[in-house]
Structures are given as structure tokens and as C-alpha cells.
């Protein structure tokens, strides 16, 4: 079941095509990573998903219905990259106000605020003015005000910038928890580190176009280059390493990174060492990191100036 279906979405500005014919689906309850370099069109895309911008063309289906900002906006929580709160307002009032604008009654909003302030242990901030808080603290308040109304779709644009490791971890755990409770999450970033860890599914955009789209595990499989790392008990002499099954990419201390040649299998690598009585301590496949895929793909699209064929991905519901 897809919570969000996007079909041929386009948004052109006078000088450039911010979003140029992008289609994708987001399964309900999944964590969807939207990746792309700066200026790829991520923010424009998100603004269309939140009803801030109208698309020039294409359509968005929210929970199977045609997206209607008036109605569906209540089910969306959006934390924009350009974060902001009313600086002179008290933290408590502010969160109440934002929650009420999302359609909660004052009573509901008060209960939610109490719950979340308790959970984050920030009751003492309630009567403080926003500009008395540090940037990281403000970010926590911002996060809470984004999720107070229990959105079905939570859109986080670069949620970890400006957070220290402890608070990053806290927010990350919260994201997982919300996801388990069924919230669908779009996580937009140009930083890859957390993506692999957090996202089930990613989409890479560059220059307004979709570059690739798929489950994280599938993408890694599709972009793997047949690299393996072999850890050995003793270092063999170079003569012992001559083989047509693999090439040595890198030599480590008592280990090699090797690239498997076509027509060979992983067992051929192991047999090569076993036959020569060189003890194998460990053997692992090296999958490309999303960062590598990202850089490679962005470079390719930039040099070719055309999207690469998108690897086929199974239409699995995540």
C-alpha cells in the first residue's frame, strides 16, 4: 500500500527546471530517503508534497486520493531545512500554536505537548522564550512541533544539521519509533552517512531528474563491483598470488581487497588460498556505500548530461 504516489511531477522556474518529470511511490510506514546534491530540486519537490507549491504538471496521490492541500495538510508534518520559530514567543505557547494550526483542539494540543516535553525531558523550557534556547535546543522544539499532530507523513529536510551526536541519536531513535508506529517518513539530505542506516528506500535526484530509486539493499547489490576482502593468517609471497580468477585491488596487512573476474565464483578465490595452504581468517563481500553510488551517479549524470538507465527494482512494499 503506497501512502504517496507521485506521477510525472514538473515544476519549472524561469531559469531552470527545478523538478523535471519525477515519478515515485512511497510505501506506507517506510522511511524514504531523498538524496541529491545541493540544488538538485529536493526542496522544490518537498514543497509540492506539502502543498506549498503547486506543480506545473503531474499529479500526487495521497493515500490513493488526489492530493488536496486543504484537506491532506493536516496529515503531514514538515520540518523544512530552513527552520524557524517565533523567536520572542514562549516555547510552550509556540508548540501549542503550531499544533492548533494543524487542526488539534487546544485540549488535545496541550496533552500532546505535555507528553512530548516529558519524553524529551524539556518541561523546564516551557516558559522560556525561543531565543533563550541554544540552536540545538531550538531544533528539538522544532522537531516536537512537527510531530505533535501525529502526521501520517513526516517530511524531514536535513533533520540532523546543527545537532550534536547525542541529540542526533535521540532524534534518530524517535524517527525509528515513529516509523514502527506506522508513520511514513521522507528524509531528505545531501549527507549520506545516516541514509544507509535509517532508510529502507532511497531516491537519488540530480538537476531536477530522478537518477535512481530503489530499496537500499537492492541498490547496493546493483552497484556492487565484485569486490571482496580476504583476511589471511600469513602473508603469501607475490608468486603465490598469480591467478586469473581475481585481481588484487589493494594490499593490506595480512589481507587483500580483490576484484572477482567474470566467469569465476567466490569459491574460486577461497580455493586459490586453500590449495596453497594459506589459512583464510575471514572473507567478506564489499558492497558500495550509498555515498559511492551517489558520487558515481551524480558524476555520470553530470558528464553524460542525461539520466542513466535506472536499475530495475522490484516493486516491493516496504
Amino acid at each position, binding site marked *: 500500500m503506497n501512502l504517496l504516489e507521485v506521477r510525472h511531477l514538473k515544476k519549472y522556474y524561469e531559469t531552470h527546471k527545478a523538478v523535471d518529470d519525477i515519478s515515485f511511490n512511497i510505501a506506507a510506514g517506510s522511511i524514504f530517503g531523498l538524496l541529491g546534491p545541493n540544488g538538485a530540486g529536493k526542496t522544490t519537490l518537498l*514543497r509540492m508534497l*506539502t*502543498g*506549498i507549491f*503547486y506543480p*506545473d504538471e503531474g499529479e500526487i496521490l495521497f493515500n490513493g486520493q488526489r492530493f488536496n492541500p486543504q484537506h491532506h*495538510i493536516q496529515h*503531514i508534518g*514538515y*520540518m*523544512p531545512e*530552513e*527552520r*524557524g*520559530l*517565533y*523567536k*520572542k*514567543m514562549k516555547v510552550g505557547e509556540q508548540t501549542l*500554536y*503550531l499544533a*492548533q*494550526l*494543524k487542526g488539534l483542539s487546544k485540549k488535545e494540543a496541550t496533552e500532546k505537548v505535555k507528553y512530548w516535553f516529558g519524553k524529551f525531558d524539556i518541561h523546564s523550557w516551557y516558559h522560556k522564550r525561543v531565543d533563550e534556547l541554544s540552536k540545538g535546543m531550538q531544533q528539538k522544539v*522544532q522537531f516536537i*512541533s512537527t510531530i505533535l499532530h501525529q502526521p501520517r507523513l513526516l517530511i524531514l529536510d536535513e533533520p540532523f544539521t546543527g545537532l550534536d551526536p547525542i541529540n542526533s541519536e535521540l532524534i534518530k531513535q524517535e524517527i525509528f519509533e515513529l516509523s514502527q508506529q506506522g508513520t511514513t517518513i521522507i528524509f531528505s539530505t545531501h549527507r549520506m552517512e545516516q541514509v544507509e542506516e535509517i532508510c529502507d528506500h532511497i531516491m537519488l535526484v540530480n538537476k531536477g531528474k530522478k537518477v535512481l530509486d530503489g530499496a537500499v539493499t537492492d541498490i547496493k547489490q546493483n552497484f556492487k563491483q565484485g569486490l571482496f576482502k580476504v583476511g589471511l593468517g600469513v602473508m603469501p609471497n607475490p608468486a603465490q598470488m598469480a591467478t586469473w580468477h581475481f585481481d588484487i585491488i589493494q594490499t593490506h596487512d595480512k589481507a587483500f581487497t580483490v576484484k572477482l573476474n567474470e566467469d569465476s565464483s567466490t569459491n574460486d578465490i577461497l580455493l586459490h588460498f586453500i590449495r596453497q595452504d594459506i589459512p583464510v581468517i575471514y572473507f567478506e563481500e564489499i558492497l558500495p556505500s550509498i555515498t559511492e553510488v551517489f558520487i558515481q551517479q551524480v558524476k555520470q549524470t553530470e558528464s553524460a548530461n542525461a539520466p542513466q538507465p535506472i536499475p530495475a527494482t522490484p516493486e516491493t512494499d516496504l
Partner: protein
Amino acid sequence: MKKISLIIKREFFTRIRKKSFLVTTLLVPLAFMAMIIVPILLSTSGNGKKRIAVIDQSGLFENKFADNQEVYFKFLPDQSFDSLKNKYESMGYQGILYIPKFDIERPNGFEFYSNGQANMQLEHEINKRINEVIENKRLEEQGLDPAKLKEIRSEAEVNFRSGKDEKKGNSAVAYAVGFGSGFIIYIVLLIFGTTVMRGVMEEKVSRIAEVMISSVKPFELMMGKIVGIAAVGLLQFLIWGILITALNLVLPLFVSPESMQAASQGASTLSQAETAQMVHKVQDVMGSIQWNLLIPCFIVYFLGGYLFYSSLFAAIGSLANEDLNDIQQLSIPITVPIIIGIMIMMKAVQDPESPLAVWGSIVPFTSPMVMMARIPYGVPGTVPYWQLGLSMVLLIGGFIASTWVAGRIYRTGILLYGKKITLKEAFKWVVKNN
């Protein structure tokens, strides 16, 4: 609608809870009262009773100087002027009045000696007393009764009537009321307009705008702010009205009626009767203003003008960037018509039937100020009904149009960061479809 009321409430309550609101709300009536009280206090010099030593060599004045709360005269017949000069202060006097022997036909040689600056109030008190005594003395010599003279004095006055209605007209009062209301609207447009503009800028610069717009429509956000600020302004006017009325009522408790009267007389020599008559006259001509028409018109033009301009100010605010200097430049196209308006208003209040005044009061850019300057001269006397009607219809149409234009600029501008936006670009957003 529920969301817009939330926005209005927030704008209203955060503003009225600010210290600055409390300060301006209380300070303005106080400043207003100070404008009335300070001259009074200055003229009476505020040091309590003044003791004046009098050396009267003519012998005409002894016991003829009435003391009052302000001045006390002590006749010292045995002192010489020169010796008293050295010791009057140690004897507790503030000054010496020296009256030489003089010819009743050519009174001169009177001197007042003190260390302080001459005091207008005191000068008036002393001159009045001396002249009264001399006048009475002269009357006596001519064999006339002072009481008789009072009866003879004439105080007739010409009443100016306007032909269109039967009320008494008075151009000075119409001028004052017209100028005052036109000027208040001018101040309101500028101050409230820039308040709206700054509010929008603040939302944009603090980046809350995008969060807000993911919950409410940009138009709701803009209108909520405009209406909220208008409500703050109306509340402030209401409080000022109440405070000024209240202060007017309690004022006499703090300032004695005599000093009030003295202040109103200033350096001139108006008698109590003359003052009373002036007051009566003012009341009379105040009645010549059509208050039941003027006040509703004021509210219409106040709100109409505010809505017309504040939405444009909001649009300009949405174009702001970190560089706040840009905004001054961008707001010129809006402040200039307001300033032209006040200039036409100043002409219109002198000549309310000139073509400039008539057209100025019809075009919505200037009508809130100019029409308010003309209305006190009489409807339908000076301002025919068709002009008033046309002006109001155009103003309402004008603010609908300006809000529409502003909404389109605001919607795009509020989310555009990091780029200097020109008015030309902003205008394209208005014309462009979508």
C-alpha cells in the same frame, strides 16, 4: 476560518503583552496631558506662593493689591529700595516691586527687581493690578463709576452661517478637525503599515514562514497578521480615548482652575468673563461639526486606508532579505503616495473644493487622508454625496485589488531566500498565471 482566527489571536495577544505596547499606550495620553499641563506649570513657575515686597512711594496702592494663591504682596513703607535690594532674599521675598511717585496721566518708572528671570505669569499679575488701580483712580477723577463702565462695554460678535445647512459654520474648527483626522490617518497608515511590514520580515528572516505555510495558506497568514495588528491599533485608540477623557476629568484636581485660566490667558489680559465666553464659543462651533457623520466616516477611511496600504506593506516585507537596507528602497513606492496624500490633505484643508482636493479625495491612494480633511466642511455642502460614495466604493475596490496583488507577491516572496528581489520581478509574479 478557524486557522485565520488563531493567527489573528496570536498577532493580537503577543503584541499587547509586549512591554512596548504598554509603554506607548500609557505614554501617549501622558504626553498629551503633559502638553496641556506643562505650559500651565511653567507659567505659574510652580514654586508655590511668591512673596513680593512692595515699596510704594505714591501711596496709591496700599491695600489695593489683592493676594491670591500665587502671589502675596507685602507693603514695606519704611524701607528704601537700595537697602532692600541687599536683604530682600534673606527676608524671604522673591522680588521687590518699586512704585515711585508718578503722574497719574503718564504712569512710568515702575520697577520689578529680582534675581530670577521675568516670569510671564507674575508679570501679568503685577501689570494687571497696577493698571486696575490706575484706571479706577482715573475714573474717580473723571467722576465715573467703574461699575457703570462694565455695563457699557460691548461684546457683540458676528455669527458666520453656512448656507447649505442651518448649523453655524466655522472654518477654523473645520480646519482643525479636518487637519487632525487627516493627520491621524496619515500616522496610522505609516506606523501600522510599517508594523505589518516588519512583522512579515521577521517571519521571513526567522524562517518560520515556511513552517507556517505548510499549515496555512499564505493569504491566511498575511490577512491574519493585518487584521491582528489592526485590532491592536483599535484597542490602543480605545484606551487612549478613555485615558484622555479620564485625565481630562481628573485634571482639575491637580491643577487649580485659576492657573488653568491663567495659562489659557497667557500673556494677554482676558478677564474671567472673556474666557468663559471663549469656551462657550468653542463649544458652539464644535456643534457645527457633523459628528454623527464624521466619526463613521473616520472609521471607514481609517480601516479602508489601513487595509489598502498594509497589504502592500506586507508584500514589500515578503521581499525582504537579510540585508534590511533593501527594504527601505523597496518600500519607497508605497510611502511616496502616502506622503503625497498628506501634502494634498494640507492643501485640501485650506481649500476643500479645489479640483486637487476633490480628486485627491476620490483616488484610493490618497482618499483616506484627503477626504477626512474635507468632510468637516460639511456633507453635502462641501462634499456632495456622490463624491463621498464614489470615494468609498473606490477605496473598498482598491483594498480588494491591493490585497489581491499583495497576496500574489507575498506568496512567492515569503519563501524566496538569498536572492535580492527587484520590484520588477515581484510585479511579474502578479501578472503571471498560477
